[in-house]
Every structure is written in C-alpha cells, then in structure tokens.
C-alpha cells in the first residue's frame, strides 16, 4: 500500500471540506473494496476521509413502512435489524449473504451503493425498492443513481448520507454467487409494492450479470403485472449479448442465471 493520510470526518461539512483540501482524497465508508485495491497498489489516494464516525450516519429508522438506513450501517446491522426484519425481511436476508463475517461487519450500505460494483447485491435492492439515495447535497432516485459499472450520479465531493424507501408488500432476492468471490453472478430482487388490481406496482432489479451494471428489468415487471408467477416470466427473454462474460460465467450462462434467479425470487415472493 502506498502511504496515505487517514482522518475521520466530524460532520458532513467537515467531510466535504477535508476532501476539497486533499490532493487526491477519497471518502472511506468501510473500505471493503477500496482498501484491498490500495493494498494491491492499484489505487493511491493521498487522503482517506472516513465517513463512518459522523454522528447518526449508521442509524436505522423505521416508521411504519418508511425505512431510512444510514450510509454507515454495516451489512451486519441491516441483516440483524429487528425493525427492518418486520417490514422488509428480504433486505435483511440479502445483507446476511454479502461477503463473509469480516466484510459484513466492516462494509456499509452507503459504501456498497456508492461503489456500484456490477456484482454487488444492494444496487438490485435499491432499484426494486424504488429507494431514494440521500446525499449531503440532494436526493436521487435509485433509477437515476446507478449510471454504469462503478459509476453513479454522485459528484466529486458528494457522498451518501442514507438510503430511504417504503417497504414493499412482499419482496425476495435470489442470488447465484460466483464460486470464487461469492459476489453475485446473477442477483434478482423482486418487489411487489401492491397497487390496484389493474395497476400493480412491481419492480425487478438485476445485478451481477449485465455488462451495463445493475438494471431494472421492465419486461419482467410487465409480465409479472399481468400474472405474478414464475411461469409468467416465460415470455421474457434475457439477451446474452447484454451480459458480462468471464472465466466463471459466459454471457449465455449469465443470461440463463438471470432468468432462473428471477423465477426463484418470484416463487419466494408468492
């Protein structure tokens, strides 16, 4: 690792100020991706500004169906939070399968969402839950937040303070892990937000598979609005040309996995 200067931000203003003052500063929100990258000498920020000690950053609030999760909440916090468990257990289940115990106790939801790794789990949930990403500057809907692989709508000194969403009626996440890294090779989050019989609100977020990163599977949503069943997805086609390909999964295999995981998520919801 190259030498770097580590400091803890006291509050949001302090964080932004420290970043602007740094030569090549980076926010740190758990470091489960950034630190290994630095250890490999593939990243060399002059300064690390740790956001996780800002007061209230790790708070989780649930009021009726409205959920607000502070950016510094760890995966373990989310996985074991009794209030979230009551209104949106599928998110707890998702968090409980991220990485290993070390990662779950250091990695945070804000870090994962901001990093937008194409194989991360949370982005699929943010899309399907129609979440709002609250930053130190503004509020951004998940649909517009995730731009491309490792790319988000966040500006230079902007950082995530929290994510909020209204808990769906029912939801489920099905993931097929990469055998080596255990990141998602295909992860599908299906959320049924209710609505009227003629206008059901169903959202499907897909991670791990697409060469464009996390995406909203609108064709699957359409099929599920007609009939909420795994079989209903039979009319949908996942195009292999849009998928990632690596030594663990060809694009054809990933396209298959997306469909299989989507069906399993739907089956788990219904």
């Amino acid at each position, binding site marked *: 690792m190259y030498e770097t200067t580590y400091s803890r931000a006291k509050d949001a203003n302090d964080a932004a100020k420290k970043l602007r003052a740094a030569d090549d500063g980076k926010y740190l929100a758990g470091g489960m991706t950034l630190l290994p990258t630095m250890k490999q000498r593939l990243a060399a920020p002059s300064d690390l500004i740790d956001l996780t000690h800002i007061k209230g950053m790790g708070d989780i609030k649930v009021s009726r169906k409205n959920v607000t999760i502070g950016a510094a909440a760890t995966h373990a916090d989310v996985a074991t939070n009794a209030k979230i468990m009551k209104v949106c257990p599928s998110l707890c289940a998702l968090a409980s399968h991220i990485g290993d115990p070390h990662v779950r106790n250091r990695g945070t939801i804000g870090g994962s969402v901001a990093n937008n790794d194409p194989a991360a789990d949370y982005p699929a949930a943010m899309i399907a839950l129609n979440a709002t990403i609250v930053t130190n500057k503004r509020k951004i809907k998940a649909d517009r937040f995730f731009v491309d692989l490792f790319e988000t709508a966040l500006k230079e000194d902007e950082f995530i303070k929290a994510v909020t969403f209204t808990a769906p009626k029912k939801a489920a996440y099905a993931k097929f892990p990469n*055998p*080596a890294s255990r990141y998602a090779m295909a992860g599908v989050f299906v959320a049924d937000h209710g609505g009227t019989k003629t206008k059901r609100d169903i959202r499907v977020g897909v991670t791990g598979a697409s060469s464009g990163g996390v995406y909203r599977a609108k064709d699957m949503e359409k099929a599920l609005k007609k009939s909420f069943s795994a079989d209903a997805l039979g009319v949908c086609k996942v195009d292999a040309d849009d998928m990632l390909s690596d030594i663990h999964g060809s694009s054809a295999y990933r396209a298959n996995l997306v469909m299989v995981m989507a069906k399993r998520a739907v089956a788990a919801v219904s």
Partner: protein
Amino acid sequence: MGIQGIGAPALRKEDKRFLTGKGKYTDDIKVAGTHYAAFVRSPHAHAKIKKINSKAASKMAGVVAVLDGKQLTGDGIGNIICGWMVHSKDGSPMNMGAWSALATEYVRYVGDGVALVVAETQAQAVAAAEAVEVSYKVLPAVVSAVDAMKKGAPQLHPEAKNNLIFDWEIGNGAETDAAFKKAANIVEMDIRNNRLVANPMETRAALVEYDEAEDHYTLHTTSQNPHVARLLLSAFYQVAPENKLRVIAPDVGGGFGAKIYVYPEEIACLWAAKRAGVSALKWTSSRSEAFLSDAHGRDHVSTAKMAFDKNNKIIGMKVDTIANLGAYMSLFSSATPTYLYATLLSGQYNIPNVHANVRTVYTNTVPVDAYRGAGRPEATYIMERMMTTAARQLGVDPAELRRKNFIKSFPHQTPVIMCYDAGDFGVSLDAAMKASDYANFEKRRKSSKRKGKLRGIGMSCYIEACGIAPSAAVGSLGAGVGLWESAEVRVNPVGTVEVLTGSHSHGQGHETTFAQLVSDRFGLPAENIQVVHGDTDKVQFGMGTYGSRSGAVGMSAIEKALDKVEIKAKKIAAHLLEASEGDIEIKNGEVSVKGTDKKLLWHEICLAAYMAHNLPEGMEPGLKEGAFYDPTNFTFPAGCYICEVEVDPDTGETTIVQFVAADDFGKIINPMIVEGQVHGGLAQGIGQALLENVVYDDEGQLISASYMDYTMPRADDLPNFQVSTTETKTPSNPLGIKGCGEAGAIGSPPAVINAITDAIGNNDLTMPASPQNVWAAIQAAK
C-alpha cells in the same frame, strides 16, 4: 497425556501452539538489524530484457542495494537444476534449459524475477522495486503445451527444440498394440487434468542471517526438506559450502509439495545478504506473489484407450500424455509426469499390456511440479474415468467391471515397473459400497428427481505408490538423490527421549505420531518424548517429507534406532539385575526380569548408562542410537471412494450429498491424525474436481491470480465425509505402514466426476465441474 502407543487417537501435541497463535513460522522470527528484500518481477510472459535502470530506485529512502541477474551469475551462483534425469525413448537426455535465480537475458513467465531490492523496511523495498525501470522487448508467448509443440510456436529455450523437453515411454508397446488388435471392445477418451495452485496457508518466506566474521549463513525457510535444500544450495547453487550453511525449517504452515523445491527467492536472498553487506535479510511472499511463483501442479492433456476381451477383461491400456512443465524445469518436474505417473497406469487391475507415452513441454507459465499426489492423481483420474466410461459403454455395473478386473494375488508385477506387494481391493470396494448404500441408489435418484434435481453416483478405486523410495531403484531411474530416511534416538540421563528425524512436519502431526512409537516401545508418557526436526545443525541429514513417505520411511528409521536403543538398554539391565538379556522386558516404564519381581525403573537404566559406574565389560557409556532406513519397495495404499451428488439442472450447481472413503493404509499409528489427513486430501481432490483451476490468457497473463478468481474449497462446499479404513500390512517396511497423506487428493476427483456425469447423462465433462461447465454439459446433452 500418559502412555500413548501405536493405535491411540492421541491429540496432537503441536496443536496447543498452533491453535493459540503461538506457532513460530519463518516470518515470526525477529532478528536485530533485519533488512528486507523485494523482487522486481516480469509483467510479460515472454520478453528480452533490454535494460535495467535502477538509478532512481537506488536513491530511494532506506535502499541498500538493487541487484540483478548479471551480478548474480557473475558472482558464480549456479543455475537451478532439475534433480531427476529422464531420457527420451531415443536415448537422448532431457533438454533442460538454463534457469538462473534472477533472469539475465530473457524472462519466460509473468512473475519471473528480474531484480532484487534490499532496503531497511519492507515498505521501502517494495516501493523501490516498483521504481526499478526495466525495458523489455516483448516476444510472443505460448501457454498451452499442445500449442507449444505446434510448428511456428514461440521458442523458450535454445536447448529444447520445439519446446520439447523429452519424449518418453514406458511399458510393453508392441504387445499392447497386438492386444488392441484382438480386442472385442475398445474405449477411448480425451482427458484433461486441470492445472492447480497449491495454496498452503503460510506463504513462502526466507530469513537469511549472515555472519561476516565466520562467513557463515543461516537460512530460516518454509521447506519440506531443509537438508536437501542445504545440499542444493551448497553443492549446486554455490551459495556457501555445506559446513558454512545452516538451514532451519521451523513451523511451516502447509506444503502440499510446493515447498519441496529451492526457489529463486531463497537463492537470491542468501547471495544478496552478503553482497549487500547486511547481517539479516528477510523476504515473505505475498499471496499475489505466491500465485505467480509457487510451483503449480498437474496440467496434463491425454488420450487414453482401453481394450477389453469378450468377457470384459481388460487386455490392454494405452495412454498418450502431454505434460506442461511451465517455463523452467523445477526440481522433480521430470519425475512427476513419468515415474510417479505412468507407473500407476495399471491401477488396481490385472492388465497384461500397458503402454504410455509422455511428452513434456516448456510454456510461458509458472514452473509445474509435484503437488499433493504428484502424478498419481493424474493416473488415477485416467484409470477411473476410463473404468466408469467402459462400464457405461459395455452396459455393465461399474463396480462389477472393476471387481472382475481386480488384481487378486500378491505380489503382482505390472507391465509398468511397479510390483504391488500387498492389498485387498475387493474388501475396500465392499466397505465403500456398504457404507454408501450403493444397492439402494436408484431409489434416491428417483426421490431427487421429484425435487427437480439430478442425482448421480460415482466411484473410484485408486492405488498409489508411496513411501518413496528404494534408493537404488530410483537411482537406476534417474533420481539425483537416494530416498532413504535417518533417525536418531537420544535417551537422556533422566529417561526422557529426544527423537531426531530427517522427516519434516508441516501439518502432518509428526511430533505426536513419532512420539507414539517411543511411548509404545518403552511405555513412557508422551510428554517425556520430544521430536526434533527441521534443523540441519540438529539433525545430521534427512530427505524430508513428501510422497507420503514420513510414516513408511521416516518412522521405519526411528523404529530401527529404537531397536538399537532397546538392545543396549536390555544389556545394561541384564548386567545390573544379574539376568540374561533374553529375559529382560521393558514395559510401562519398568525394566524387569520376566517371571521374577526383579526390576528397575526406566530412568534408572538411563542414568546408569550415563553414570557409567557399572556397565557391562567394554560397553561405551550413553544411550543414543542412530539409524538410516532405505525401503525395499514402494508401498501401495489403495482404496475405494464413492461420491453421490445432486445437480441443479437450471444452474449446473453440484452438491455433494454423500462422500464415502474406504482406505487401506496398512498399519495406522494414530487413527485421528490419519482421518484428518484423509479429510484434507479429499478437500483438495474435491477442490480440483469442482472448483480449482488455473487460467492464463493467450498473452500469458494469469487470470486466476487471486481468490477473487481462483476458487479454493470452503467448508460449505464439502459434505461430512464418511471415512473408514481396512488393513493389509505392507511387508516392505518393519511397521507395515503404507502412507496416507495424499490418498484423498488422488482418489477423489474421478469419483466426483463419475457421479456428475452419471447425474447429467453426459460423459463429456472436464474438471473443474464448475456450475458453468456442468450447465453447458447439460445443455449439450439436450
């Protein structure tokens, strides 16, 4: 602890320090004034070094020296050798290319060492290594052995035309060809054995202490055989004379073969310590460096053919193998795909005609050498996939086809050198079939089908050659060393015992099992017995630990030394108790005259030996004996593994629902440790079958260079193993031990693949059977 003799499942003495974080590994050793080494490694698979500019690096903080390959060879450091001469079938010796510890003119794989930095701290050394500017002329590279043999392929070494190292054969070729002409049925398959990284938990490390006044070196290093390392470093690499070099292999966290060899880093650090004028120099491999520099394993491509008569008896076996040895010939790289491999191509079967041809090839990849099993897993994978494939083709039960062809009388001379001394293959097969409820498998298949899962069962009846090896025999086959073992038993005046052994424990539990031999022999509490190993200043010489040899060969040497101690102790006792030697009995720490109440305590005899006030006429004082043991034959552990899987047809994911192992290891000293060895071997074998795979891209970049892409087996990938043992003692050593360290890794891969191919109904499946590969095979069969 008390008396813990042969057969006791004694808890491991060494585990207290290992499990409480108190082990002392090379990197734990702190020496005042230690400097640190970092290596500059080639980013290219094949290139000519144009220029090394170390100006900027030399000026960096804390940097003492930046050294390169020309300086190293200029100082007379010798090239790295392959220690086993193999001749091609035309009689010509193998074509070994030069391998210098730091590259001088060409680099031949990504990770090849180009220069070395010595600095005051590790961070400074790493930073300076990055600042060394090397300009390369990049050359075309080749990573597959098959491609390397093609016309126009990049050439690695001028010594090896067309990258061919040797073209070797074994067996009775003409008779085998004749047998195939008479065959009623012929089974033929192309079989690939995937390339692996050993991945011991502790990465390699070296700490050199250089004493300028004495011109003496001490090397602490992660070695499975410190004495062989000293021999190579002094006699071949000219680092220091043997009497000026002490090699210590302290606690070592796993080896699996990859720590047998003396690597460029150890040689370079020894040389650099003196050259840079530092009193101590340390290098500890990062995990990333380990992927790029530890010897890889396996990597064979073969075509196998089996001929059957009309009664389904095998009448011929023919194998053509191409083995990828990487960019340089590592220490045992020539023996692994020949004498450790093709000599097992008769398996457990009575096959009158066997012929194998092996071509070994240079490629722009990390050198390949012995890895847990070394050649024998490759042979077993071929034999046992062929047997199951043949059974399917002939329409007979795989168990019955095997049973029909088993060797049933011993000794049995195969057409490929080996003479099996003892075994009972039917007993292992019966035990495994019973434990796996083989008879009712089809019911279980049906119930899986109802859940939408494909269930399959597969077996593997393996045999391997261990206890390497009779020195004269391996010498005649080209080995550069003898493969005996040494031991010394020192009985102290108070009756405690130190056992010095040339074997080296790096996870095997020798401190416990070797002590059990002594505890058993004299009835002494285990805590009074100390096993000393891994230090060339303490143990005079030894051949180290690999090839499942420490039980069969290492303990046999101890047994011989114990015989001598017992004889002398009895002589002293007979003298003191005024009885005849033949009537003396040593039991439970007492030395008594049979049939009388006359006795002395064990420590009284020991004290008498050292006081020497009253010894038999002419007897030398003391109670210390040494022995060398050279085995009379290999040993032949064998067994039957049965694997049952469920495959998810939608994702191709395989779950092992049952794994049964029935092994015959001969005499067992500590059944708990043996079971642990089987578990570890199975984890690695299943790892090869389902998960692990080295992947290079066409330019020779290692794609699977970290755990993000190289799939190590994890606990949740593995089932609860059902293991059991049967026993036929080997007559080839005094204890009847066959060895158990590698069996799991040797026997399991074909059992897993046979089960999956049974489940999916497609025999065309290569390792690793990753979800993607299995899914693709299911699609192909549709």
